[in-house]
């Protein structure tokens, strides 16, 4: 098993996460021939309606330093709990339009159970613990701050 690194890794990218990048990341794991299972979670910006207005985009901001430091602790805890081969996290900052991807969690392991459980736990912890905020952009220059449901 690969140990997680000592220094916090960056997880943030400006704007949406491209499906081509996701395909490339998957392709780059083909040389890791001990992997038997990948579990991937993608968050996509939804055209919710807020008081009869439709969300057209979400603008993400974060306390970046704190988010990376907390994400580092989450990584350490996940690697201690699950025998993962690797774990990659990407989260958008700035504007992400409806239909575009804002979160990409990619967990790989020898067996499926570990990859699936680790991926789900990382997604839950990201939503609960990382200081990131989404501003839902509506029509007519209006907006509403997003709230994550339990």
């Amino acid at each position: 098993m690969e140990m997680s690194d000592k220094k916090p890794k960056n997880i943030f990218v400006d704007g949406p996460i491209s499906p081509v990048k996701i395909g490339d990341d998957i392709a780059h794991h083909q040389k890791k021939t001990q992997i038997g299972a990948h579990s991937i979670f993608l968050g996509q910006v939804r055209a919710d309606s807020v008081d009869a207005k439709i969300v057209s985009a979400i603008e993400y901001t974060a306390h970046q330093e704190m988010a990376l430091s907390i994400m580092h602790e989450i990584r350490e805890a996940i690697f201690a709990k699950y025998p993962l081969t690797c774990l990659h996290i990407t989260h958008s900052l700035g504007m992400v339009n409806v239909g575009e991807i804002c979160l990409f969690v990619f967990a790989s392991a020898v067996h499926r159970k570990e990859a699936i459980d680790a991926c789900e736990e990382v997604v839950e912890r990201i939503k609960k613990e990382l200081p990131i905020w989404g501003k839902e952009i509506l029509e007519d220059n209006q907006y509403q701050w997003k709230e994550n449901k339990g």
Partner: protein
Amino acid sequence: MMTVQLMSYGALTDITGANSFELEISGEKISVAELKLMLFSQFPALEGKTFRIAVNQRFVSDESDVKAGVQIALMPPFSGG
């Protein structure tokens, strides 16, 4: 007299008006609880809001001390992902 740096995030920036601002405080330290009262007096709309405070990137309780030069983050519930 001391100066502390404050950062506000998410919905709280609508109340504080700026993401980043300073507060001048008499004395050499105050508690987080006292800091909150000062903030409520300056930004009355904050009082009804749910938020957590981090000092130098660590979440703190009301009893913690705030000293000169620290960085304070006012953080409403997270909504990433």
